[in-house]
């Protein structure tokens, strides 16, 4: 039996093209962020009838039916995470890990469950408006250049605190970075090995510290992160609108 399974793997390797690359969506919902209000972290709050987290999983399943889903949740939400998978009977490979103290540590715990070679998507569970289009675009960028990091231009005027006052900043050079942040599994052992550093606010900074050059892929303004109570109100309206308009099409 042991030899059989190893031979099967070799057989797959020989085909050796992109079709065989595995896709791992590490959806990070390990934070205890309660800024949205109430005693439920924002990624588990109800949004138009489903938990916020649900929509990200659905988007990845729609983008890639063969995706491996790895959820990272706080320990109190372990049973919740396990139960949530009942909504996705079509997903063959599904894991739930408990997160750590920092986002970086939570991502490490999710990456531990990546068992094959291919592409990793690290996505904020609090970004429910991620679209299959954006997921595919970041995937294509990662296949072509190793990483796919979505960014969007800044539309507001920006000023920087200069101590004794503020100074304007040229916003044309600025980009807001989103998720999913996508990279080849080969980079995991190279980049995600060291100790946490304060600049590790996302995966791009971790990859960059290991020498990976970060170019950006076109993000989507609708793919915002729910952070404040106002965001949740906005998200509720947007999600209801999207659900109604998709019903009208059918």
């Amino acid at each position, binding site marked *: 039996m042991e030899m059989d399974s190893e031979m099967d793997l070799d057989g797959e390797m020989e085909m050796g093209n992109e079709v065989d690359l595995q896709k791992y969506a590490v959806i990070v919902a390990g934070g205890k962020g309660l800024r949205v209000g109430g005693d439920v972290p924002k990624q588990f709050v109800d949004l138009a009838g489903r938990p916020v987290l649900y929509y990200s999983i659905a988007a990845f399943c729609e983008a890639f039916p063969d995706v491996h889903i790895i959820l990272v949740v706080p320990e109190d939400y372990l049973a919740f995470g396990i139960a949530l998978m009942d909504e996705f009977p079509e997903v063959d490979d*599904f894991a739930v890990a408990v997160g750590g103290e920092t986002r970086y540590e939570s991502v490490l715990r999710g990456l531990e469950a990546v068992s094959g070679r291919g592409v990793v998507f690290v996505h904020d569970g609090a970004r429910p408006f991620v679209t299959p289009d954006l997921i595919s675009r970041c995937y294509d960028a990662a296949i072509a250049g190793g990483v796919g990091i979505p960014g969007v231009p800044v539309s507001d005027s920006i000023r920087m605190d200069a101590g004794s006052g503020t100074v304007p900043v040229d916003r044309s050079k600025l980009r807001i970075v989103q998720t999913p942040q996508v990279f080849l599994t080969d980079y995991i052992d190279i980049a995600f*090995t060291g100790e946490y550093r304060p600049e590790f606010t996302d995966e791009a900074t971790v990859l960059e510290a290991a020498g990976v050059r970060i170019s950006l892929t076109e993000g989507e303004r609708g793919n915002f992160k729910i952070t404040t109570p106002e965001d949740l109100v906005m998200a509720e309206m947007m999600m209801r609108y999207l659900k109604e308009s998709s019903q009208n099409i059918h």
Partner: protein
Amino acid sequence: MDQNSSLIIYTDGSSRGNPGRGGYGAILQWGGAKKELSQGYRNTTNNRMELMGVLAALGVLKRDGLDIVIYTDSAYIVNSVEKKWVFGWVKKGFAGKKNADLWMKFLDYYKRHRIRFVWVKGHADNVWNNRCDVLATTAADGNQLIADLGFESGQYN
């Protein structure tokens, strides 16, 4: 996926009837090395087999202080440990809780290593989880069954 320092354990337990004959399967992976374990029992429970798979894997380790990630499809085990229920059971002397014999052994290992669990969907796409299932059911259906004395004594159920 820090495979240089983390020991990876996959386990699965199964029983034919609950209680009934049962078995566990476990696979340890460390770098490129791999070890498989299995055993069948004549009368036991599903949860005991899940736990005994974990204990069997931890039992072969010769060193303490290892970083270990255990993959299991047992929500009973993952929840009990990661949500720290089991520590509450210890404080209350396992009143009304089953499998105290196995949990106490587990907690001894838990103190000696850094152990984390990841819950995986059972009987699915993970090749190692599937292999554990084959090991467990083959052992349960085999003719090398031994007694689960903890269960048969009636003390822990």
